[in-house]
């Protein structure tokens, strides 16, 4: 939709993407598209479905011309029947196909929850391993221009709670492609939540097939004073906060979990063991969400490391307002993360 177009801008210098100088630099949507291209090219069982995946715009550019490339059997538009089509994807996956189901917004997944949670997530377990559901569900969190309450929900907090689902939230072009390829190769249902703000990035993305392991976090920046676990586009915000604080002599360590389920608890605990201070930043609502789980995990398993209260930087517990002044109040980033860090050290 026009109101949700983004124009890519290169990272400012100091970007944390893998050696941004060398190699091929492409935009985030192109990185996702490249991932789709690779899996469609190399695995005949893979197909891509979703509303308007065949549209000129190509879902923010991520599916551009894939239908021309692979034909209408393997890349197809769907009716607005999210409930049934999630089940259709589950059925195709049971037969051994590898469906990739694209959704414009996570908000629409509420119509598909029964098939995703009651079926896809449980099928392997409920039948004692006799069947499996290699399914990838992709959706992109909206933000801005009055997207409002029904077109902007960051629902990772819900999906993180469901046994049987894997949950991925990339933060770099490199990971967006590598994790997508890993998700399609995975034999289980995997949810990938993208964020529109990531789409502004450009970054280093190798050609061909490569996988970023699911369940493995990464240290985006080393530091000793405070650990910041940040999710999705907030990794970049945290990175910029850290750069500014470094000037003030405060070295912040930034952990990007990349996958929220399974969560790389070890990388977080090791960092907190070093710093003793923890800030968790997530785009979702604060109460009952991702920041709650990560904080609880550390309060349970890393309590002795903690020198200060855990701080959570997350979305206010209200539906997303439409108006831009209220959007300004609702959304947050570098400044709020910086603030939280400073409160922990002072």
């Amino acid at each position, binding site marked *: 939709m026009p109101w949700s177009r983004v124009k890519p801008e290169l990272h400012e210098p100091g970007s944390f993407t893998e050696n941004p100088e060398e190699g091929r630099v492409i935009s985030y949507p192109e990185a996702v598209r490249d991932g789709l291209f690779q899996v469609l090219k190399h695995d005949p069982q893979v197909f891509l479905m979703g509303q308007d995946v065949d549209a000129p715009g190509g879902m923010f550019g991520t599916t551009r011309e894939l239908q021309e490339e692979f034909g209408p059997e393997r890349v197809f538009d769907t*009716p607005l029947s999210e409930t049934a089509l999630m089940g259709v994807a589950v059925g195709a996956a049971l037969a051994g196909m590898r469906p990739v189901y694209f959704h414009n917004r996570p908000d629409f997944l509420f119509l598909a929850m029964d098939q995703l949670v009651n079926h896809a997530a449980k099928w392997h377990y409920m039948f004692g391993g006799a069947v499996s559901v290699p399914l990838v569900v992709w959706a992109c969190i909206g933000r801005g221009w009055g*997207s*409002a309450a*029904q077109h902007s929900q960051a629902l990772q907090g819900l999906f993180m709670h469901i046994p049987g689902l894997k949950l991925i939230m990339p933060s770099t072009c490199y990971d967006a492609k590598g994790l997508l390829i890993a998700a399609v190769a995975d034999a289980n249902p995997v949810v990938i939540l993208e964020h529109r703000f990531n789409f502004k990035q450009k970054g280093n993305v190798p050609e061909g097939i490569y996988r970023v392991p699911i369940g493995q976090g990464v240290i985006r920046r080393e530091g000793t004073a405070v650990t910041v676990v940040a999710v999705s586009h907030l990794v970049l915000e945290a990175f910029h906060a850290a750069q500014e604080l470094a000037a003030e002599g405060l070295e912040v360590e930034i952990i990007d979990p990349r996958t929220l389920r399974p969560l790389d608890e070890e990388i977080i605990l090791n960092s907190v063991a070093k710093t003793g201070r923890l800030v968790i930043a997530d785009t979702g609502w604060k109460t009952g969400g991702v920041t709650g789980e990560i904080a609880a995990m550390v309060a349970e398993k890393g309590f002795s490391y903690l020198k200060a209260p855990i701080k959570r930087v997350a979305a206010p517990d209200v539906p997303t307002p439409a108006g831009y002044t*209220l959007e300004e109040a609702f959304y947050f980033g570098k400044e709020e993360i910086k603030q939280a860090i400073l409160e922990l050290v002072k």
Partner: protein
Amino acid sequence: MNLPRETLTRLYYEMLRIRRLQLRIDALYLDNDMKTPVHLCIGQEAIPVGVCAHLEREDYINSTHRGHGHYLAKGGNLKALVAELHCKETGCSKGRGGSMHLVDVAVGHFGSSSIVGGGIPIATGLGLASKMRGQSRVSVAFFGDGAADEGVLYESINFAVLKRLPVLFVLENNQFSVCSHVSTRQAGEYVFHAMDLDLLLSAKLDGNDVLAVYEQAGAAVARARAGLGPSFLECQTYRLWGHAGCQAQEPQGYRDPAEVEQWRARCPIAMLEKRLLAAAMITRSEIEAMERKIAAELDEAFTCARQDPLPARADLPLYLFCE
């Protein structure tokens, strides 16, 4: 055309008013004063106008992301709408909803959803409330061909039929869901046309002919008020503008420009105007007077909206719960 002159000119005026508002939005959209995703219904004005002409103030409607026409046709407050587009505190939704989330309870408009199909069962529930209370209120669900892909339509129609609820299911079939043509989402006729007419009054009609819409909606509303149950009206139409935003923002390549031209020639307003002029039921100067009146109304609405206050950032938590 065997309608009283007042009715005909009223239908014309209401359509013209909706059109002019939308052209005004289109013209100003790139100024970025309206930071909200607008979905214009240019070319589809006959449907809300033809249907709402039969509704009383207290009757209910439920609308969609493409809801400016429904809101105005039902009598929604113009200034509050324009203020909402400007994300102002004076907006119908106090700047919390934006273009896709309009409301005006004073005229029975209880809020539009931007989840496609989301309003259909809600309209059904409003009809249930009316029936439970023994009121004569009818409830209208406006929705598009994309929404007709959703199972909730089947469930809602089944329930309305089962309880003989006073509900009109008005399908605005403009043949597209964003860039997706209806033929890639549906095969054959909508099954609801085949239901026993006593259970569900159904009709397929020219949604660009306001008189056809007016006539069929009249029958459906009468049936609902008489307690005979729901109706399903498929109104065939076309959106002359892009899915969202202003005309300049429409992506190319998903529909044939020639098709757009054919439909432009079937503009519901131009068609009625032609007939009214031919039948000498309206004069050019009357039309100009209407245009002037509407222009003045719009000028005022936009001027106020620009001056109106923005929601205070501190008010973010307001309205989470109703006390």
